[in-house]
């Protein structure tokens, strides 16, 4: 298993300003972060290199994130990638239903502090 500080993280977030903040938080911890804005770009990024952790906004523009996760779950190598859902809908998501999509943690955008995001990444690796 890799030491957590060299983890490769793919961040899928369509709000560029929020993505900037999250990327900065993660990079200060030593993580290597790639950021894409939508599900199609995420598929292409995963084709290039499978990340150690995937962080996704649950309400992406364009193709839904569940379609992306459904696709990832259908391949053995990508099905193993732990997913963290970062969302404003945390209070209406049922984590047991999302496990089928590889989602291991849910982070509430409305209440999270920077340390919560780092803790979530460390908890899934």
């Amino acid at each position: 298993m890799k030491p957590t500080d060299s983890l490769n993280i793919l961040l899928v977030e369509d709000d560029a300003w929020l993505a900037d903040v999250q990327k900065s938080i993660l990079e200060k911890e030593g993580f290597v972060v790639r950021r894409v804005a939508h599900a199609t770009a995420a598929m292409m990024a995963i084709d290039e290199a499978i990340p150690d952790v995937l962080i996704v906004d649950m309400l992406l523009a364009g193709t839904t994130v569940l379609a992306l996760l459904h696709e990832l779950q259908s391949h053995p190598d990508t099905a193993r990638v732990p997913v963290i859902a970062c969302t404003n809908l945390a209070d209406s998501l049922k984590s047991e239903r999302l496990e089928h999509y590889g989602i291991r943690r849910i982070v509430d955008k409305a209440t999270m502090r920077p340390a919560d995001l780092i803790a979530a990444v460390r908890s899934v690796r």
Partner: protein
Amino acid sequence: MESSGVNPVTAAAHELKAPLALMRQLAFALEGEEDPATRQRLIDRISLTSERALRLTTDITKAARLEDALFALEPLNPEQICREIVAELGPLFAAHDRSIRYEHRRNPLLLVANRDLLRRILTNFSDNALHYTAPGTTVRLHMTSLKSKGVVRIGVRDIGPAVSADVWRSLQKKAVMAPQAIHARPQSSGLGLLLARQFADAMHGRIGVTRHRDGATFYVELHASEQLRLW
């Protein structure tokens, strides 16, 4: 375009949650930032995000007053409104590495509308387009006369991510299988469109959307002014 049936209070709370959550995260980032240029950029982003949230609260309060207040309709040339929106939202778009412009028409069009409500509709569509349009692209406001229907259409065109036909078909198939309703703008509760429709109704007009493979055009149609025929 049908009403989503969503409770307006819930929808308003949902719509406001995103900018408020973003402002909170930007404030956290500001707290730990020492570089003056980065601090200023974060402050600018907090300011622009709060303005965007405030525009939504203005729309909500205006919609609540629709039944009580009289919104006078008058013949007007919407070009000036479009130019004002471009000037107002230009800095916000530039801060997001996008731009917005109005496509000038050689022959002016007159329609019957309330200046304030029409402005709110087009601002709403432009805000929506900002979220969806790709970095480096330009959102365009444009006008068309639909003479057979006696209406003028004002559209706001955004440019979304282009995908190959194969990938598109594959994703559409999977999206249909996903246990979630598919919307063109899934991050939205639809409140903005609901408000825009109410504003259009108050002016005896309608709103609609045309989807393109690389984006969408949200539009409002309003009656053309009879004065046009005198020109």
